[in-house]
């Protein structure tokens, strides 16, 4: 949910009815008109009014009558308007041209860098190097420092030597990272060379340039184009300087004024990725996974915003911002992580070396492709990590080593979630709970949007519609289910609201530029915003989640943090003014993109510690938090969804690149509202959306208040059947999902991956973003077009085999057309993988905890396969803090022998057992199987299916968390 139905205070939807009044007065030739317009719109009311109870809203036809009545001497033809605005109102959001610092940075001319290194000031140690950097125009000095990190990552930091005011360094983004060492650098008059692993880092002094090379080839160069810009802090000149950009010292956008008391403080730097052919990253944008050249249009914008009815295929800012860019070619993958939470724009130019340009380049003596990028931020330091790869999975590991990985989620959060803005009463929740059972559709989590609160005061319940929230939660938990309730960061300014009173009295609110509590409009009407930069505010807010503090909460209640960009309906670009003041005296402009992250961090911590009756940390339940806004590092605290999308095929299609882009930037736990948030999907779109959504990590159906109900059984039995089978398939794959999340937690490997992540040398994959890989074992290419009953699937990997998961039909490298009627999802096992599943799908995932497993052993061309299974209690921290509460199993099949062994030192006495083994890709034969556990050998029944060439081994019945061997003959 979220986003104003209509952005305050403008109206986007107007129905103007006109009735004519014609008076003929006095003059035979003159017609005097009275035009009476009735305008039905929202203008007289703040938008939250539209979110009061659905009955009253829907019953309420808002109306405004405006009239014109005057003697006029011309016929006024007032046109009758009937306008439904169904996409973003772009004028609410800035273009680069409307942003002073973007204008200033973007107009820099290449090749004229004024920055030089002061080589005399060079200092170095085994773990660092510092050198002075001078702007030769202004003689202002900066300190450039380099640090070698583990995995050959290089950190570059540039600070002002004597800033008038400290610049903001974002906390909570970086984890403790490990430093590495380099040998004594070799220094000459105009350059310094460092050896970092197998790479050579070269610092050129005039003009400043930094290059990193491997194997004699430079793969990344900084300030190559001379776009480095560092606006030093300075005092406001008494006279206005006309040579400065007019927005340097104060700026207006629409009706909003930005006082900019500290003046221009932008930083910018260009990065050239030599030899790279594609660029990815910079989420969140509703755009293709591969970044496009921005020349001639706007740069990609990173500024967390609540964009009402966002448009797809454009670089506009969205709810989340992760300043990680990855450049890629067959040879090499390189990442740049630009640690800056202020507003950031990134220009990208992808120069692919095709035949025509190679001729041109040949003449120019440059035959290489390249990706040129230009990062521009409004404030902060230059702080950059160069992630050298060389392969995509290396870059992902290097990035998550810095920003952390997602913690292992409770298993229920990987199951199916059911939500709608207007699930309006506990009776409603009970009825839905029962209906899912009646229609035999598994469901783990019911969601409540803002309607559950008492007048949009979070941590309260509507006393009528949710009079007994604990009983409601118990009804759900009696079926193994959970509840999620929304907690937004805007606090209703209501003197009877404890949270408002506490925050006011304790000074926990964000301040406006005049240092008074900032007030904005959001769902509750007049609201203020907790300043999460303040550690006391954070702790206070976190403790609101304590079961004692949150009346009506139980340990099975989890949390949805929405609107945390933060969304302010009447603020500039629907967020906070940049000259608001946070803890420490920092301006909102300096911290903006970090706000959502710190908010979810507070929630995450609050949930861990909410139950005082649980003393030992190991026994506490793992939190689940969903966020809309995110920054680098948010994966440590929350899952994310792609916000308020629409029930349109194009939005279904864009959900894959959006989540893939987030996943390669650390945030694997991503999904899109199944069915689309705004408007109404037809049965076909709904089924296809369930199918695609079932193979994204976060799987939730959600819809707007104004959308019709769309529970799976409301579209006829055929649709219900299709959706049931999709949801059941998702549940059967939960062991795989859970294992992948465990692996992500350990390694940082994305749970979902673009094809090029696993097949980086296959250039056919570079532009594909409607396929995804689940780990490295499943390839998914859902149908995402209206009326389509077949899809073209690209099967990567030169000697790979891919098996349809339903029919075991085999596909080899290349493109194939796959039939996909309405109930078919094209999903394929990679030959060579072993996939654990649970085929006994129950009402909810906790009820499946002790159920037996089936292993799918899918052979590669050499007749081999490997795979993993992770299991634990699915909900506590015991897995991490004890040796006896989890198991990580490795399976290997080679030479007709399948073996199970522990892949970690942990052991787990799980009641689950091995129900069956299905070996796919065998030649027809008379097979026999025997099981070896310790000294015992038992023969097992087998069945060979000649139509699918698969062998099913019946009931080995060994404990799943144990060592064993099965041999087939």
């Amino acid at each position: 949910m979220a986003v104003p139905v209509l952005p305050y205070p403008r109206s986007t939807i107007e129905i103007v009815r006109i009735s004519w009044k014609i008076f003929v007065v006095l003059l035979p030739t003159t017609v005097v008109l009275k035009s009476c317009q009735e305008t039905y719109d929202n203008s007289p009311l703040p938008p939250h009014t539209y979110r009061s109870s659905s009955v009253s809203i829907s019953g309420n036809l808002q109306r405004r009558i405006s009239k014109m009545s005057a003697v006029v001497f011309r016929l006024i033809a007032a046109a009758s308007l009937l306008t439904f605005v169904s996409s973003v109102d772009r004028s609410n959001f800035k273009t680069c041209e409307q942003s002073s610092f973007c204008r200033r940075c973007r107009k820099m001319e290449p090749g004229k860098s004024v920055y030089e290194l002061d080589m005399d000031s060079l200092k170095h140690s085994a773990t660092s190097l510092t050198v002075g950097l001078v702007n030769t125009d202004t003689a202002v000095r900066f300190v450039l420092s380099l640090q070698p990190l583990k995995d050959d990552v290089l950190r570059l930091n540039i600070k002002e030597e004597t800033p008038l005011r400290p610049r903001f360094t974002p906390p909570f983004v970086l984890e403790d990272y490990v430093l590495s060492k380099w040998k004594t650098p070799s220094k000459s008059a105009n350059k310094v060379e460092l050896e970092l692993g197998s790479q050579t880092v070269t610092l050129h002094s005039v003009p400043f340039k930094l290059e990193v090379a491997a194997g004699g080839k430079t793969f990344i160069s900084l300030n190559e184009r001379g776009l480095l810009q560092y606006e030093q802090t300075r005092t406001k000149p008494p006279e206005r300087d006309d040579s400065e950009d007019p927005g340097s010292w104060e700026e207006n956008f629409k009706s909003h004024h930005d006082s900019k008391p500290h003046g221009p403080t932008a930083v910018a730097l260009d990065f050239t990725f030599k030899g790279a052919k594609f660029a990815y990253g910079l989420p969140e944008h509703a755009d293709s996974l591969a970044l496009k050249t921005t020349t001639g249009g706007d740069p990609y914008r990173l500024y967390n915003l609540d964009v009402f009815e966002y448009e797809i295929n454009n670089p506009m800012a969205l709810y989340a911002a992760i300043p990680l860019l990855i450049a890629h070619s067959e040879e090499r993958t390189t990442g740049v992580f630009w640690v800056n939470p202020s507003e950031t724009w990134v220009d990208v130019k992808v120069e692919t070396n095709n035949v025509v340009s190679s001729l041109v380049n040949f003449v120019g003596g440059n035959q290489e492709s390249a990706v040129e990028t230009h990062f521009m931020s409004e404030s902060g330091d230059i702080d950059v990590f160069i992630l050298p790869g060389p392969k995509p999975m290396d870059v992902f590991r290097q990035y998550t080593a810095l920003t952390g990985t997602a913690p292992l989620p409770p298993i229920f959060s990987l199951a199916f979630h059911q939500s709608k803005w207007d699930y309006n009463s506990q009776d409603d929740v009970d009825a839905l709970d029962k209906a899912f059972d009646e229609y035999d559709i598994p469901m783990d989590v019911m969601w409540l949007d803002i309607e559950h609160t008492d007048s949009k005061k979070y941590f309260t319940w509507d006393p009528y519609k949710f009079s007994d929230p604990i009983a409601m939660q118990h009804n759900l938990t009696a079926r193994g289910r959970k509840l999620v309730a929304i907690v937004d960061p805007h606090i209703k300014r209501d003197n009877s609201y404890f949270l408002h009173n506490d925050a006011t009295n304790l000074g926990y609110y964000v301040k406006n530029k005049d240092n008074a509590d900032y007030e904005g409009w959001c769902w509750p009407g007049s609201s203020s915003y907790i300043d999460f930069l303040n550690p006391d505010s954070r702790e206070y807010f976190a403790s609101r989640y304590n079961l004692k503090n949150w009346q009506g909460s139980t340990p099975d209640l989890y949390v949805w943090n929405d609107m945390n960009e933060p969304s302010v309906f009447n603020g500039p670009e629907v967020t906070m003014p940049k000259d608001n003041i946070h803890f420490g005296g920092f301006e909102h402009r300096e911290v903006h993109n970090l706000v959502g992250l710190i908010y979810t961090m507070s929630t995450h911590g609050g949930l861990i510690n909410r139950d005082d009756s649980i003393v030992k940390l190991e026994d506490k339940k793992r939190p689940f938090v969903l966020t809309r806004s995110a920054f680098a590092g948010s994966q440590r605290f929350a899952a994310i969804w792609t916000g308020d999308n629409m029930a349109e095929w194009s939005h279904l299609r864009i959900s894959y690149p959006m989540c893939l882009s987030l996943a390669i930037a650390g945030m694997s736990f991503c999904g899109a509202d199944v069915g689309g948030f705004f408007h109404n999907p037809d049965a076909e779109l709904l089924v296809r959306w369930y199918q695609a959504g079932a193979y994204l990590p976060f799987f939730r159906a959600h819809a707007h208040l104004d959308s019709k109900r769309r529970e799976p059984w409301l579209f006829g039995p055929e649709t219900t059947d299709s959706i049931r089978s999709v949801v059941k398939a998702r549940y059967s794959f939960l062991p795989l999902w859970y294992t992948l999340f465990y692996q992500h937690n350990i390694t940082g490997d994305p749970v979902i991956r673009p094809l090029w992540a696993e097949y980086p040398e296959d250039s056919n994959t570079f532009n594909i973003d409607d396929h995804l890989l689940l780990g490295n074992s499943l390839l998914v290419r859902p149908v995402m077009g209206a009326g389509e009953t077949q899809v073209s699937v690209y099967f990567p990997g030169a000697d790979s085999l891919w098996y349809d998961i339903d029919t075991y039909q085999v596909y080899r490298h290349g493109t194939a057309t796959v039939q996909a009627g309405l109930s078919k999802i094209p999903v394929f096992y990679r030959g060579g993988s072993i996939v654990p599943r649970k085929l006994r799908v129950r009402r909810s995932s906790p009820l499946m905890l002790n159920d037996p497993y089936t292993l799918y052993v899918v052979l590669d061309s050499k007749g081999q396969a490997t795979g993993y299974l992770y299991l634990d209690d699915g909900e506590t921290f015991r897995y991490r803090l004890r040796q006896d509460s989890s198991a990580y199993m490795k399976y290997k099949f080679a030479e007709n022998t399948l073996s199970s062994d522990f892949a970690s030192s942990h052991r787990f006495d799980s009641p689950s057992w091995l129900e069956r083994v299905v070996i796919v890709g065998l030649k027809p034969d008379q097979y026999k199987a025997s099981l070896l556990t310790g000294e015992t050998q038992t023969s097992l029944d087998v069945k060979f299916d000649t139509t699918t060439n698969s062998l099913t081994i019946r009931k080995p019945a060994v404990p799943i968390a144990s060592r064993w061997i099965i041999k087939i003959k």
Partner: protein
Amino acid sequence: MYIEQVCILFMLSLAVHCVNDIPRGVPYNASSLYKTAGDFNCFDGSSSIPSSYINDGYCDCADGSDEPGTSACPSGFFYCINAGHVGEYIRSSLVDDGICDCCDGSDERYRRCENICGALSDAARAEAEARAKIISTGSEVRQKLIHQARQMRLQKEDRLRKLEEEKVEAEKLKEAAEAHKNAAEEAENAALQIYRQKEEEIKQERIRKEKEDAWREAHNIFINLDSNQNGLLDVEELKVKQIFDRNKDGEVSDEEIQWYLELKEDVTEDVFHSSIWQHIKPFYMMEMGLFTPPETHNENGAQDAEEEEPLGEGGKEQVDEDEKQDDDEEEDDSENVGEGEVIPQNNDEGEPSPAEPEYDPRTLELMEAAKEARSEFDSSNQALQSLEQEISQIKEKLSLDYGPEDEFAPLDGQCFTHTDREYIYKLCLFNQVTQAPKSDGSEIRLGAWSGWVEANGKSAMLYDKGQSCWNGPQRSTTVLVECGSDNELLSVSEPNKCEYLMQFKTPAACKPIEDPDQGLHDEL
């Protein structure tokens, strides 16, 4: 429902035997199928397995028949014996999942489930008895309603017949009156012809005089404006006249003058008369206080007042009123256009209206006779129309679907209310549904009678084409009609925006059960 279908298939394929030693999850009457000395044949014939594989926790049969007592088969079913209550099949996925689904708890081996079959059975029996009682009292009332409906229908049909007869008479009367009227009017017209000619002559003379006066007035103004006496008016001559300051900025601009002169440099007196004077005249009249701009209508005043009201729940009803007002206004408009012809030249105000000519006695007599004939015709015509109206109303009611036995007919027009926390809902059967906030009485229409529909396999009433929602559809209401001992509007909800759902209980829906004990029989 989908369980039931499968279960029925199961039942049909099973012979009925009673055996004590039965596998878990199998009803008594199917246990013999599992008592095989040798191999077990899957019910669907797909394969044959050793009988030791029955309920061994591994699914061997595609139809799930080998695992009636475990959760091994995704498509299988478990039979809860539920001794003391009603036996039932549940999905295999509910077996041993830690939740007690059978009332005898037989689906859970690994946790203790209380046997609640006795209590459930008692409750079910009590409910069935209560239900049977409601149906029996309800169906008695229903019989009365059917009887009443029959009476009503007969009465209506009687009335209709009578009206049809009266209509024939009335038509005859009307025809006679019309003939009489036509004759009287013909005589009257002939007599009046002479007076009409005279009237016309007087009227023409008046118009001529008025034109002349108007021309003279314009001529005088022209002479007055033509300060250089050259027979032409130009911009400079007009500019000195403050009266031409249209925008009241204290200055007469060239643009303003050009507008009066229709962008001409100068104009002759002929042109002045033919068009320019028309532009100038109102300003002279305003100057002389003869003209004021039209006042805003009274109803606009009313709208202003409404606009100032807080836009709360009360806003809804007003919208409808406004729409109505709109229509009224439009009607007014057409009248106003007519009034508009009363341009100043023709404004008779202040002048005495021309006196009625003096008619001779015979003419007066003829006029009186014609007047009487007209009035007689009007009343006979009205009588016919009111008959026709009543006929059509009765026909409409007679053709309305009041249920298979007309049992809802006596409820036509009756209203029932339901009050929740915020609103009072009113269902007026076969008419409309409304909603009014408790705080004030202004109603909003949730739909008008449309017809019978099917909802959830039951018959329901649809009231649609209610007031439109903001950014949404027209409101509509589906009324689920169920048997109850009294008429009662039980609940109201809004499952989709602007789509309301009501539950209405009425004896009219209580069809008698053939066997009143049905429902208590399928227990063991």
